[in-house]
């Protein structure tokens, strides 16, 4: 009881120490590091002043690693039922081989949080929608499970829940008969944290994924996409995804 009255000081201290260390390391490597945007006050609605995005550097992504997948599955309570055809996958590793040149790449693929999401266009009830800050979500309260959004998604990002779900994580409600996809860990983002995949990738040491506010010119992600060449997958569709890639 008393620990709740007095938040965990040792953890706070550790966090501030490691933040200093990380700042020093990244300053040394020449990239200006600005922290992830602070948590918005919980009573405040999200606005389009912020646009959340991710930048994935496929050069740092190795074919055998799936730390991001494991991190996502654990955080969101995705279970393996041993039925890969119908088990939900919010993020997957894709191995690519260029047919012309033979070069190989590996990258994680998840909901691209498009600025103009086809899934939100086709949803008959409006359950599939884009939040003001750019995160595309499924409102499972009004999802009727028609799966039209799964047909429409150009990235095959969505899954249908084919069985009863029990023991959900409280921050990730999911149930039979509705459609789901990567939420960019919206509960974490709203509290100023990074998505679980980003966290897991960084923990593992690869640091292939940067997360941040694309609208903030001082954020790491905005500066990186301005400096280096990055691509959106299926860019010709004109959807302007919030997830961009380097190295392919």
């Amino acid at each position, binding site marked *: 009881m008393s620990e709740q009255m007095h938040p965990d000081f040792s953890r706070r201290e550790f966090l501030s120490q490691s933040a200093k260390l990380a700042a020093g390391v990244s300053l040394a490597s020449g990239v200006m590091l600005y922290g992830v945007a602070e948590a918005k006050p919980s009573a405040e609605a999200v606005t389009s002043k912020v646009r959340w995005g991710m930048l994935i550097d496929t050069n740092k992504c190795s074919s055998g690693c799936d730390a991001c997948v494991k991190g996502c599955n654990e955080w969101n309570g995705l279970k393996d*039922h041993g*039925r*890969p*055809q*119908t*088990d*939900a*996958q919010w993020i*997957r*590793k*894709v*191995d*690519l*081989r*260029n*047919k*012309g040149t033979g070069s190989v*790449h590996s990258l994680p*693929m998840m909901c691209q949080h498009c600025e103009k999401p*086809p899934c*939100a*266009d*086709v*949803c*008959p*009830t*409006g359950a599939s929608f884009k939040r003001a800050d750019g995160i595309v979500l499924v409102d499972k309260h*009004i*999802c*009727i*499970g*028609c*799966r*039209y959004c*799964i*047909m*429409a*998604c*150009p*990235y*095959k990002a969505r*899954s*249908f*829940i*084919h*069985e*009863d779900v029990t023991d959900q994580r409280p921050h990730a409600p999911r149930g*039979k*008969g*509705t*459609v789901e996809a990567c939420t960019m860990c919206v509960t974490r983002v709203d509290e100023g944290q990074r998505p679980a995949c980003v966290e897991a990738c960084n923990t593992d040491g690869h640091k292939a994924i940067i997360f941040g506010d694309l609208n903030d010119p001082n954020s790491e992600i905005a500066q990186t996409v301005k400096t280096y060449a990055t691509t959106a*997958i*299926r860019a010709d*569709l004109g959807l302007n995804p919030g997830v961009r890639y380097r190295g*392919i």
Partner: protein
Amino acid sequence: MKKVRFTQIEGGQGFWALLAILGAVIVAGLGAVYYMEHNGHWVTGMNNQIVWGMPHVFAIFLIVAASGALNVASIGSVFGKTMYKPLAPLSGLLAITLLAGGLAVLVLDLGRPDRLIVAMTTYNFKSIFAWNVILYTGFMVIVAAYLWTMLDRSMKKFSGKVGFVAFLWRLILTTGTGSIFGFLVSRQAFDEAIMAPMFVVMSFSFGLAAFLLVLMVTYRMTERPLGDAVLFRLKNLLGVFVGGVLYFVLAYHLMNLYATEHHGVEAFILRDGGIFTALFWVVQIGLGSLLPLALLYHPATSKSRSMIATAAALVILGGFAQVYVIVIGGQAYPMTIFPGFEATSSFADGAVNSYSPTLAEVLLGFAGIAITLAATAVALKLLRFLPESLGDEQVVAKAEDSAAVKAAA
């Protein structure tokens, strides 16, 4: 002028036996729905790669045929061909019952069918699905009103105007159904503007085939005369529509074949797709288009009733194959997320997806057909939809009379 008399069909053993069989199919379908609903869709053949399966093939066929079944009535009232006028009430009835059967299958396969009220009250108007909810329910209302103008003598004067509205509405409706696929940028098989008009012409063909078959069977079972004049007119029209569908299929594939970008999906459907290729060439083109054309027009078979009925049944079979190839073949071909790359992943990227329908899904589909037929049978018994006779002397006299009236004027 020989006036056409409409009467109810009598009951009798055949009628009740038919209802019993259809009822059993419906009950089986409902049992299948409970099984799929209770366990979740993992018990079906549908999965995260093939999200729309057998139920959707049946539902889309029935819905497309529904709007086409109204054609016969439209030809009568909108285009003024008096010979078709006695057929109009049955045409309107079949349009409603086909749509009801198709919608029943669609709704019962939803992940959350208990949220149908949400679907009918919360709309995202950018979604063609949302528009279709309004178009489908509106269609039922309008055709019901159309039937009212046909069956109630005091309302007959509105029949032309309401018929015109119904005609326009069903064109918009079928365009909407085709647009479900035509609007999808994600998959190569779908992202085509031609989908909308192709579905309209498909509806002409499937709807008329269904109408013809129901007409022939009903008149045989109730032992009412069905003359050659009506029958041959309808079968010639069916041939025209089958040709029309063939043209659109040809145009769709030829245009795709020209673009290098689409060579992959074309090779899949036309050559390498296994079951899809077989269904396309053998069932859709061969049995469903070319053979019926031969049967309907070749002098050796074109006058034979059994051949005409066979041709109509083959058109329906070909129609199912066509919808299967479009809906499931389109999902089976891997999405080109990374053009120019070979992709592999745990989520079937780059891989051709396979689909094996389960019994539950097929039962649900057939239950939809059974709902259509049962509703039609019951309606024919309760109300006066069927002309007592469609014999030649009845129908030809009517046509001659109206020609005489026109000549005199």
